[in-house]
């Protein structure tokens, strides 16, 4: 990787420059919280945001998307045109970039998803460092650091950014739009100090020892019933999760029924119908089994395939769940045998 120093007041130039070539999407305020939304200038950006309501996944994998079109008259089947304008996602935190990498595993490996991939290929990612909030626990999964999956990463050193340039395109952007300077040894030392402090700032200590074993060994534990009683089966956790990728597929006909499209929408394993099959059989009928499945899949199912857990510790689900069910509470319960 290469590195440059960028003065903070250059960010306005950078965004202006980017906006001339790309749609720039970044964190903006919404009623005291934050969302990723298109911006026209740096003044709209809130790079000091804690976390966003929805993760960046919707810019690659929208909540609703056409995956195929058909005409009933001549049985013609076509792909949907992917709307993937050149776009920059500006200001992603390490957890969210790590989450994208986990999504990439699903959507760009075996049976490449053309829609996800087209957007991923057409999107530049500019990361920015963050400060932990009380619901974050990315330190637990080592997702507080990120080393690829972005084009530029900006680490905040007070009045300047320490910019890591991961890709050619990222380096070009910086060259084109801002005056940056060489990194000195002092800069790197300052970078080390800042990152070190950041690591110290986490107070969430979650004991993840032997999670897959615990999940199997405690498969029938009563803790799941307790969580089941609390769960509202609303699926909010899955929607806000940057690593939840499950979807439902339905056919939608045009009003005249002559043509139609096949649409996928975000789905959640917390919905009762998720695992229902014909003849009234449902493999996860009870709420408890569904809550369990979410964690089982995240901490063990995905791990067994991709050697990472399917959680980046962003804490969004903890904030979104009206009943305060969260990975931290669940893992604690698995470790201690009791729900707190």
């Amino acid at each position, binding site marked *: 990787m290469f590195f440059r120093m960028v003065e903070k007041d250059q960010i306005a130039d950078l965004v202006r420059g980017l906006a001339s070539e790309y749609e720039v999407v970044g964190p903006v305020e919404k009623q005291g919280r934050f969302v990723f939304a298109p911006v026209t200038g740096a003044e709209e950006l809130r790079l000091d945001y804690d976390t966003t309501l929805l993760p960046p996944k919707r810019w690659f994998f929208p909540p609703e998307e056409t*995956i*195929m079109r*058909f005409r*009933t008259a001549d*049985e*013609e*089947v*076509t*792909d949907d045109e992917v709307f993937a304008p050149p776009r920059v996602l500006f200001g992603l935190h390490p957890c969210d970039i790590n989450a994208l990498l986990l999504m990439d595993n*699903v*959507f760009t490996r*075996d*049976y*490449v*998803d*053309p829609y996800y991939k087209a957007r991923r290929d057409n999107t530049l990612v500019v990361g920015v460092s963050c400060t932990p909030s009380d619901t974050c626990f990315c330190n637990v999964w080592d997702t507080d650091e990120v080393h690829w999956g972005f084009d530029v990463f900006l680490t905040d050193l007070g009045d300047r950014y320490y910019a890591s340039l991961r890709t050619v395109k990222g380096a070009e952007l910086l060259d084109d739009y801002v005056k940056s300077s060489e990194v000195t040894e002092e800069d790197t030392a300052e970078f080390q100090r800042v990152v070190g402090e950041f690591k110290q700032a986490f107070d969430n200590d979650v004991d993840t020892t032997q999670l*897959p074993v615990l*999940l*199997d060994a405690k*498969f029938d534990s009563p803790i799941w019933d307790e969580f089941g009683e609390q769960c509202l089966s609303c699926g909010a956790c899955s929607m806000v999760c940057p690593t939840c*990728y*499950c*979807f*439902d*597929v*339905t*056919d939608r*006909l045009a009003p005249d*029924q002559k043509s*139609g499209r*096949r649409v*996928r929408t975000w*789905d959640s*394993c917390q919905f009762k119908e*998720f*695992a*229902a*099959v*014909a*003849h009234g*059989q449902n*493999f*996860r009928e009870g709420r408890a*089994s569904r809550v369990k*499945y979410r964690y*089982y*899949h995240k901490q*063990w*199912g995905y*791990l*067994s*395939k991709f050697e990472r857990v399917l959680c980046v510790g962003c804490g969004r689900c903890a904030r979104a769940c009206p009943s305060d069910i969260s990975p931290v509470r669940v893992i604690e319960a698995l470790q201690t045998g009791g729900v707190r």
Partner: protein
Amino acid sequence: MSVIPQDAYRRDAETNPYRPWPARITSIIDLTETEKLFEFRIIDPEIRESFTFQSGQFVELSIFGVGEAPISISSAPSKQGFVELCVRCAGDVTGALHAKQCGDVVGIRGPFGRGFPFQEMKGHDVLLVAGGLGIAPLKSLINHIHDERHEFGKVTILYGAKNPAEVLFRYQFDMWKHRDDFDLILTVDEPDESWDGERGLVTGLFDQIEVDPDNTYGAICGPPVMYKYVIDEMRKKHMDVDKIYVSFERRMKCGIGKCGHCGVGHQYTCVDGPVFNYWEAMNLQGAI
């Protein structure tokens, strides 16, 4: 680890894996009141030529405007150019398929999933146990074994249905019954006057068969409740857990390991299964 089979999509990385190929219904046979056997011909000749599969794999069948359903292929891989599906009318897609006629066009994607380990089974005895509609994927395997019969040892088929009217592929079984290289035993839970076969559950048939535990591969497919009991019987016969294969049915939306619906334990039925060996299956929490 999942072994994604070589399939038609690989030949063209640009292909949208969610886009089905139009296929024409070339024959429909009524099997029972609720099941029909359909034969399809993929319209695009290139795709049709390259469509190869293993017994135990499935396709996603599309009725445009209704949706998709995963269905096991029940014809043998050796039957080129056509795909045969045995479908029970169980809901929207399958119901809409049942309303179709010869010559109508539907969509097919696939084949997907891991099938039975046909090559490994060669040189061994095979014990196949089917319950109800579970015979559909096993029929593909049986037909395939039939095509290469000399490669296998003893082949035993146990098949249970609820009543005589629900016994599928009776015409074929009647044919096989008279062959001495297949041991076929049929049983029904609720026999009527016409029934001259066995009665009772399929597990009851194990008393009648001899199994060479070191040399036998097992394959099971049927309703979820059946697995545990059949496996118990196989274990009583001392068969190896990793030589017993089971085929699972789960809800599926994509068939290619993305939509997440078919999760069973830590695996996905669509890409890691639907055929699992029993050792794997035992390790899947909530599977059996």
